């Protein structure tokens, strides 16, 4: 069975249909780029996978574990799914190390020493072992996002969901975060990421998924999707992002 298996996923907010009958299988080690216009449902899609949004119909399995509304079952599922947010969402009152160690203590019931060891190892992995005692506000945006990645990795997830993780960063800080994700991808981590970094998607991702009006409109290998887009919507979207990039 695929690592992430999504079948017939539908989601509406009130009368607004945001996700329409989405099915997608993600294999272990795949890196998927989700692209599409703002409002096309990319964030909602990611948030359904770890149960932050409740789907209306359809099924999602992660590592054979079904996503269900029940809090206890969700908790178990979320141990397998790491989520990284656009706004980092670090815990402001905790140091970088405590940010990575807190859930190990609270959720995995690790001893303080064990949790610190794991937390520190993950911080080192994102190149921030030396900032373990810094508070979030003492770190740059890029460093904060790397701590957020370390925090997610500390739980040993089988898949990472990244929602525009570089969109809140100053341009010169984007690369250090992408670098970390690139390394994770090389090590075989399964990643589903919403991104506007087309060159990154092209060079790192195994598959690109174009969302349009709540549907998986077109998907395929990056070379195909970027080099030979089949639908007019994707052509138009790529045209817009290309001209936006040149305009910058």
């Amino acid at each position, binding site marked *: 069975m695929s690592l992430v298996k999504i079948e017939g996923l539908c989601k509406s907010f009130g009368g607004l249909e945001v996700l329409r009958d989405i099915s997608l299988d993600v294999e272990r080690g795949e890196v998927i780029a989700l692209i599409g216009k703002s409002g096309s449902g990319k964030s909602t899609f990611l948030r359904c996978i770890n149960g932050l949004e409740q789907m209306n119909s359809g099924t999602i399995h992660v590592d054979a574990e079904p996503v269900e509304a029940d809090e206890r079952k969700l*908790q178990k599922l979320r141990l397998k799914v790491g989520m990284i947010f656009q*706004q980092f969402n670090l815990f402001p*009152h*905790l140091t970088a190390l405590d940010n990575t160690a807190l*859930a190990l*203590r609270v959720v995995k019931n690790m001893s303080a020493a064990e949790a610190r060891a794991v937390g520190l190892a993950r911080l080192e992995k994102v190149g921030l072992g030396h900032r373990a005692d810094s508070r979030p506000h003492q770190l740059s945006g890029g460093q904060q996002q790397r701590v957020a990645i370390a925090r997610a990795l500390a*739980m040993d997830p089988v898949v990472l969901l990244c929602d525009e993780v570089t969109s809140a960063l100053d341009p010169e800080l984007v690369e250090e975060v992408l670098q970390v994700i690139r390394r994770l991808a090389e090590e075989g981590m399964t990643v589903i990421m919403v991104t506007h970094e087309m060159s990154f998607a092209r060079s790192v991702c195994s598959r690109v998924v174009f969302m349009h009006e709540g549907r998986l409109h077109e998907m395929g290998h990056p070379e195909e999707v970027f080099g030979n887009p089949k639908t007019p919507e994707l052509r138009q979207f790529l045209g817009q992002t290309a001209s936006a990039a040149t305009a910058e």
Partner: protein
Amino acid sequence: MIQSFDFSALSDYSDVVRHGVYITLLLITVGAALGLAVSILCVWARLFCPAWVRIAVTSYVEFVRNTPFLIQLFFIFFGLPQLGVSMSEMTAAIVAMAINLGAYGTEIVRAGVQATAKGQWEAATSLGMTRNQAFWRVVLMPALQKMWPTLSSQIVIVMMGSAVVSQIAVQDLTFAANFIQSRTFRAFEIYFVVTAIYIVLAALVRLALRLIGRWVLATGEVP
């Protein structure tokens, strides 16, 4: 005719004043600690308890905020014994202060929790925490930090309001003042001195609260 002032008459009563200061500080220390605990528990209850508990908490908060402190105190000290709940003057005073601060504190802490970015809850639950764990480990501390100046002001307000506990014969600073006044008839002098002492106490309590805010709340290690 303007009387000449005579502060020396007060010197015989310095022990009474000292005891009054001690009682007032004791009341506010214990009352504030309990009141904060009540506030936090009420905010927690409003988030996690069934509807009837939430309604009870809301009623409690509204009841306290719409009645005078003196009436709350009399109710606890004179009223409750009729229901078989009697306590010493000191206990009644502390309970009244905790209940009073608890109600205002609930609204203040709740505002802090409500102002917490949704992303904090989401980050915590995405890591596998329950909402309850997220509340205690992630949301509460920054909310208290954010609202600490407002909470501190409220604690000082309650401390000033505590003067009325002298009405049930708790021997606080105001009780001492009234007592000395009745003995010496040096009203101006004694109330002048006691006013000054209250100002100093308020300043000290504010300072202590600032230090607590800085040292205790700012070091949010994983417990």
